[in-house]
């Protein structure tokens, strides 16, 4: 998490107040104090953060969210940092690492816990208490706890923890105004009996057996504590509608049907409206119609047209033209649309349930249910999806997921052109063959990677939050934050990508590769010679490749079109996603993905061409 590390370093190496003040004129102590908000996922932490700072952060922490730390200011200008929702500080994933670092560097911690799951949540609380951090506890979701017949003795909880506790209902704002006044009383609370010092504690985390022993003590301590503060009203607690509803989605038939509905909606909204209609407007009308000509004119005033520099700056793949056109004309609306969709699924609690249903299938290819997020995002933009593979628990899973994404998942830009071409290649029958082939290849590739890669993948342990109605305001803010974070990260890579392609164009490397490919295209894939160009274009942008095919399609048979589509889908991911893979997975792995995609694309394409001609299906 390159973006999140820097601030911590500064924090933990902060110089003592007195020596700093000599250099920096007037700096109030309060201003330099950093407060960190911590808690388990889905406890209402972000609502608390928003109410304290007025800024927005993600509502829940189900995979797909970024690990960046939202930062805001309290009314007295102290810094408040949010951390990702975690179940512990055990370095199991980047989110836990980030949360631990932030907590260790904090001056004070506000720990949000849910009254519904005290037994689970107080485990993290105890961990922070054992780190001897000055802290206070916000006991949230009190209304739901009351509704379920749970009574919590707050003053007893305060005494047992040794830190202030405030009861709140974050969604309605009840109790939130008491947090700040109480923060002044935040203090170091009660550790578990015979708790080692902080250095010994952090060292313990590195030793699995000793850690389990420590966690056992902590668990016992917390369970005993919870026993003393909670009284469960006897009698039946009715199963809430959200729980019934949630369980209903775990039924395979309902799950499958709802999954189909979810995918069709996604297809209509993102595939047709956004990547078709909206992008058509933003890219063609707005960018190509107005912005790009203006840039080209401006550049030509300084650099003469026809020179190599002009081509690099403002040519067909120019750094100033194509990257702008792509980032703002295509990516921005697309990513926005995708994140709105995924945020709605996430906030209503449906996404974790899809993860549960898909777990069985995904575990066959060395992934677990969590991988549904990158895969769904992949149908939007493989670059975005590759970034989101960070939420997977192990390097092994990230390798498998990013390889599958790069090779077998067509992104929405491609899907739009694909739809048009499928109509020419025989419609429904062509779709079935195409989808069947890709699923087969995905299965083979995943199974092979799962066999070859050393180690074993992690199994699913997933907390299912209650189903609830998503709040439009939260969805919009969350979508905005995510889109911005992604663009900030990916935009430089798109610029780099277009620079590489422009240089290749100027130096003649593009034409050379095209010539090199021609025999392969004509002899092996049985396609027209010009088709070689579409493969090259497919490297620049995946949909360019498919679009190139579109212009050739009147000279081709249905079988040829289908074989070409299979090849293009499998063929190298676009240059932006390739740069992201390099960044996330390293050069060696990226080179292997590249080589693998060439090999698979041409092998599968050639075989498809022959099978189709031989069988005469199309």
């Amino acid at each position, binding site marked *: 998490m390159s973006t999140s590390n820097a601030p911590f370093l500064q924090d933990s190496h902060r110089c003592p107040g007195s020596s700093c003040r000599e250099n920096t004129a007037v700096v109030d102590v309060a201003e330099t104090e950093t407060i960190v908000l911590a808690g388990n996922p889905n406890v209402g932490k972000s609502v608390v953060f928003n109410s304290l700072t007025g800024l927005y952060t993600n509502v829940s922490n189900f995979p797909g969210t970024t690990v960046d730390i939202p930062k805001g200011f309290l009314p007295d200008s102290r810094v408040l940092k949010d951390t990702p929702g975690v179940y512990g500080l*055990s370095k199991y994933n980047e989110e836990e690492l980030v949360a631990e670092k932030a907590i260790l560097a904090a001056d004070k911690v506000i720990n949000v816990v849910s009254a*519904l799951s005290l037994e689970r949540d107080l485990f993290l609380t105890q961990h922070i208490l054992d780190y001897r951090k000055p802290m206070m506890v916000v006991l949230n979701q009190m209304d739901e706890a009351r509704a379920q017949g749970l009574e919590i003795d707050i003053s007893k909880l305060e005494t047992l923890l040794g830190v202030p506790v405030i009861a709140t209902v974050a969604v309605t704002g009840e109790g939130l105004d008491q947090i700040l006044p109480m923060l002044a009383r935040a203090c170091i609370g009660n550790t578990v009996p015979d708790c080692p010092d902080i250095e010994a504690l952090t060292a313990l985390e590195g030793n699995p057996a000793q*850690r389990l022993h420590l966690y056992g003590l902590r*668990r016992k301590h917390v369970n005993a504590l919870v026993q003393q503060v909670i009284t469960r009203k006897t009698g039946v607690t009715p199963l809430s509608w959200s729980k019934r509803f949630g369980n209903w989605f775990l039924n395979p038939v309902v*799950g499958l049907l709802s999954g189909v509905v979810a995918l069709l909606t996604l297809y209509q909204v993102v595939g047709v409206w956004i990547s078709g209609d909206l992008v058509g407007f933003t890219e063609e009308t707005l960018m190509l119609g107005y912005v790009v000509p203006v840039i080209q004119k401006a550049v030509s005033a300084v650099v003469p047209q026809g020179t190599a520099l002009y081509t690099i700056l403002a040519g067909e793949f120019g750094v100033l033209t194509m990257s702008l056109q792509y980032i703002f004309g295509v990516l921005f609306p697309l990513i926005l649309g995708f994140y709105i969709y995924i945020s709605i699924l996430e906030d209503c609690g449906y996404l974790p349930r899809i993860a549960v249903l898909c*777990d069985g299938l995904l575990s066959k290819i060395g992934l677990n249910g969590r991988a549904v997020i990158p895969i769904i995002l992949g149908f939007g933009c493989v670059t975005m999806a590759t970034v989101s593979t960070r939420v997977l628990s192990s390097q092994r899973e990230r390798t498998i997921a990013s390889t599958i994404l790069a090779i077998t998942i067509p992104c929405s830009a491609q899907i739009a052109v694909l739809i048009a071409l499928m109509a020419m290649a025989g419609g429904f029958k062509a779709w079935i063959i195409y989808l069947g082939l890709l699923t087969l290849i995905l299965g083979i590739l995943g199974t092979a990677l799962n066999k070859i890669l050393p180690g074993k993948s992690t199994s*699913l*342990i997933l*907390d299912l939050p209650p189903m609830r109605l998503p709040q439009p305001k939260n969805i919009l803010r969350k979508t905005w934050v995510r889109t911005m974070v992604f663009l900030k990260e990916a935009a430089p890579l798109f610029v780099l990508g277009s620079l590489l392609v422009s240089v290749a164009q100027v130096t003649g490397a593009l034409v050379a590769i095209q010539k090199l490919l021609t025999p392969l295209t004509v002899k092996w894939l049985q396609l027209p010679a010009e088709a070689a160009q579409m493969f090259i274009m497919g490297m620049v942008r995946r949909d360019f490749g498919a679009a190139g095919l579109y212009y050739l399609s009147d000279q081709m048979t249905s079988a040829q079109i289908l074989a070409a589509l299979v090849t293009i889908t499998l063929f190298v991911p676009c240059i932006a996603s390739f740069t992201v893979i390099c960044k996330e997975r390293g050069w060696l792995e990226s080179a292997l993905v590249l080589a693998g995609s060439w090999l698979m694309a041409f092998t599968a394409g050639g075989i498809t061409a022959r099978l189709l001609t031989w069988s005469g299906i199309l």
Partner: protein
Amino acid sequence: MTKITLQDMQTGQSAVILNIPDIDVATQAMRMGIAEGQYITCIAKVPAGPTVLQHGGMELAIGQHLCQQIEVQLS
């Protein structure tokens, strides 16, 4: 009483956790409140997929592979 694993539980059954052999799994489960001696209820089973448990106020999905390793006793 013969020992069974989480995987063998049917929807609606309750059990007490006896043993989680894998140290890493035990650590992770411990944080969630699932430890030896705890009572859990199986609320859903996805065919060839995870088992969904209820424990206290929370619901937890556990992958098939893990379920086969966690020993429980029906209550």
